[in-house]
C-alpha cells in the first residue's frame, strides 16, 4: 500500500504508456524546473499545483517525474 501510494499502482502501466509518449515536447517548451519535478514526485505539492497540468501535456517531464519517483514508464 505504501509503495502504491508513493509510486502509483503497478497495474496502471497503460496510463504510463499513454502519458509518457502521447505528448512529445522535444523543444522542451514550458518545461518544469528540476526542483519542481522533484517536489511533485515527492508529493510535496498540493493536488491543484499547476505542475500537474504540465505533466499531462509534456511526455518528457512526465518521464522525468516518474524516474524521480523511482519508476520507469513502459516503452510504447
Amino acid at each position, binding site marked *: 500500500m505504501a509503495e502504491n501510494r508513493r509510486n502509483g499502482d503497478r497495474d496502471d502501466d497503460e496510463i504510463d504508456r499513454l502519458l509518457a509518449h502521447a505528448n512529445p515536447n*522535444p523543444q522542451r517548451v514550458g518545461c518544469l524546473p528540476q526542483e519542481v519535478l522533484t517536489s511533485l514526485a515527492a508529493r510535496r505539492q498540493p*493536488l491543484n499545483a499547476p505542475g500537474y497540468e504540465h505533466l499531462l501535456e509534456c511526455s518528457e517531464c512526465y518521464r522525468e517525474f516518474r524516474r524521480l519517483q523511482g519508476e520507469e514508464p513502459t516503452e*510504447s
Partner: protein
Amino acid sequence: MEHLRTIGLLDSDGQPFRPHIERVLIQLLPRLRREFPLLQDEVTLAEVMEEAGRRIRHREERGQIERLHGYAWVTVRSIATSRMRQGSAKLHQKTLDSDAGNARLLATPSSRGTAAEVEQTVLLRELLRTLSREERMICLWKKAGFSSQEIALHQRRTVVAIDTIFSRAKQKIRKALGIDDVADAPARRSC
C-alpha cells in the same frame, strides 16, 4: 452485468441513484444487452444506464412514475439508439482520409523516430484526448501516489465516484490499446 452491479451506477453528482431506480436499471441490463448487442463494453453500458437514471430522477421530480419499468425501458432504449448513431457518426468524424492523415503525421513534432513511432504517438495523443480533463487528472494524481480519498476530498466527490471514474478511464485506455481487461475488477472502495 456483474461489473455494473459491483461498481454501482452514479448520478451526475457522483452519488448512487435511489435504490428503486438502480434496481429497475439493473433489471433492464440483460434486455439492453440482448436488443443492442453492439453496445458491449461496460463503460458504454454504464453511461447509457446512468443517463437513463438521471432522466428518470429528473422526471420523478414532477411526480411519481406510474409504470416505472416501462418508462425506464423506453428511456434506456432511446438513449441506446442515440448512442448507436453517435458511435458510428463519431467514428466517421474522427477518421481522417489518407491525405489528412499524412498531413497530420507530417505535422507531428519529432526530431527522431520511425514512421511507426510517429504514428504511435499520434494514436496515443488522440486516445488521451478522448479522456475528459477530470479523467486525465485523476489518472495522473493516482500515478503521483495520491489516494482516492485525497482526490475525492479535493474534487468534492465521493471515494466511490473517484474509483469509478478511474476504473472507467483505465478501461477506455485498455480497450483502445487492445489490452485484455479481465484482471481489472474495480473495487467498491480503495485507499
